[in-house]
């Protein structure tokens, strides 16, 4: 098979598992949910406690909304960001996995949501709803099966490494020293997601403490808030520095501190990073053979270590940084 038809098939299959399957499953689930809605108690049980006894209740529409949100909107967001990368010429196992996760997630949400409603048909009071243990177990198995199937229908293609653009080493005299410094911060999309998460969890935490509610819930929300604040602080912005010691990437709060010494630099270049496709998202990310401080899409420094592993950091003016790093590498090699 030629490369062209493989690519076309890869994109078509990705579209099938990451867009069409979530849409189809969600449409079917919503139709069933609306069809049985008249025979359901109001409110319905949406959460079950440890003993299988319902302890959380909400109107039917909130289950439908949840099904649409987590069964279609979320997988579609994943699918569309992946599709963008594929159309730009990228490919690889990360996309295959992304597609499988989108399909599996949609299956889990639609099946468990619909099943938990179906169990409550004909009840006058949702407090008498039977346990959902079986529904959850079977939905999880179904989700895994759908995910595995979605993985298998997509062709296996090697990861594309868009070639790094090399830069001319900076013209650095024998007695000259130079330093390149720049701050890089989380791009619009990551900022939006983190910001929305902070606001929602923050409001939830305040509400949980102020309103009469379960102390355990309040504490777990507080815990989530602390984790979110820590993630924001750590991955929000980094200082990137190239000097005679090599490349250093340090979070604005001081930690973590990531370094590639000049002696460990095998090569360096400028690359255009697609976070979703190549790293599965933004943040401190690992991908096969690579580690990345990936805060946005676009221009990045890519350093290949002597071990062959790559270190990537998204930052503006990467070309100057690479030129300086190559100049120091050349100097280190000349004197050793």
């Amino acid at each position: 098979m030629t490369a062209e038809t493989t690519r076309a098939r890869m994109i078509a299959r990705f579209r099938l598992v990451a867009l069409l399957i979530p849409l189809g499953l969600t449409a079917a689930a919503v139709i069933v949910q609306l069809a049985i809605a008249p025979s359901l108690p109001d409110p319905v049980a949406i959460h079950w406690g440890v003993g299988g006894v319902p302890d959380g209740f909400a109107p039917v529409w909130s289950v439908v909304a949840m099904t649409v949100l987590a069964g279609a909107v979320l997988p579609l967001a994943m699918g569309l960001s992946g599709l963008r990368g594929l159309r730009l010429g990228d490919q690889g196992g990360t996309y295959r996995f992304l597609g499988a996760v989108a399909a599996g997630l949609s299956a889990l949400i639609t099946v468990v949501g619909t099943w938990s409603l179906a169990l409550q048909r004909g009840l006058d009071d949702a407090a008498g709803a039977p346990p959902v243990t079986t529904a959850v177990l079977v939905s999880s198995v179904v989700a895994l099966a759908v995910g595995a199937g979605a993985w298998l229908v997509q062709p296996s293609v090697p990861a594309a490494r868009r070639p790094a653009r090399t830069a001319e080493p900076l013209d650095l005299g024998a007695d000259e020293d130079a330093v390149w410094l720049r701050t890089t911060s989380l791009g619009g999309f990551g900022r939006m997601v983190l910001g929305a998460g902070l606001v929602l969890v923050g409001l939830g935490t305040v509400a949980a403490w102020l309103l009469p509610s379960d102390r355990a819930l309040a504490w777990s929300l507080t815990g989530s808030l602390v984790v979110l604040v820590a993630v924001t602080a750590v991955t929000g912005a980094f200082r990137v520095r190239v000097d005679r010691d090599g490349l250093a990437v340090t979070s604005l709060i001081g930690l973590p501190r990531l370094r590639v010494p000049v002696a460990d630099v095998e090569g360096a270049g400028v690359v255009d990073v697609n976070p979703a496709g190549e790293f599965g998202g933004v943040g401190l990310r690992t991908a096969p053979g690579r580690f990345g401080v990936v805060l946005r899409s676009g221009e990045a420094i890519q350093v290949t270590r002597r071990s062959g592993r790559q270190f990537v950091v998204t930052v503006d003016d990467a070309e100057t940084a690479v030129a300086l790093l190559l100049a120091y590498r050349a100097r280190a090699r000349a004197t050793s």
Partner: protein
Amino acid sequence: MLLRVDHASDTPLFEQVAASVRTGAATGRIRPGDRLPSARDVAASLDVNLHTVLRAYQDLRDEGLVTMRRGRGAVLTEAASHLEQIHREVLDLVERARALGLSAHTLASFVKEIADDR
């Protein structure tokens, strides 16, 4: 931004640091509102004295290219964009002089002569 110093040059180190900042502003690599790296970071990376870098930043403040604020460090002012504009005009001038066969040296003395006369 890129800062460079030649330890063997006759030009004082603080002037070289300041010149690097001016070049960054003139070429548009750093823009009004951008923060200069902390003097301590620069001094450590370039293997120069902290006071050398501080002196360079003070000179840049005196000429209005940066403002110094407690807690915010040295921040590039609007003057940086004027420098970028002049940079573009000089590039045009150099292009035209080259087309006429004038050397860089001749052009430089020509510009200096005119500037001194006015």
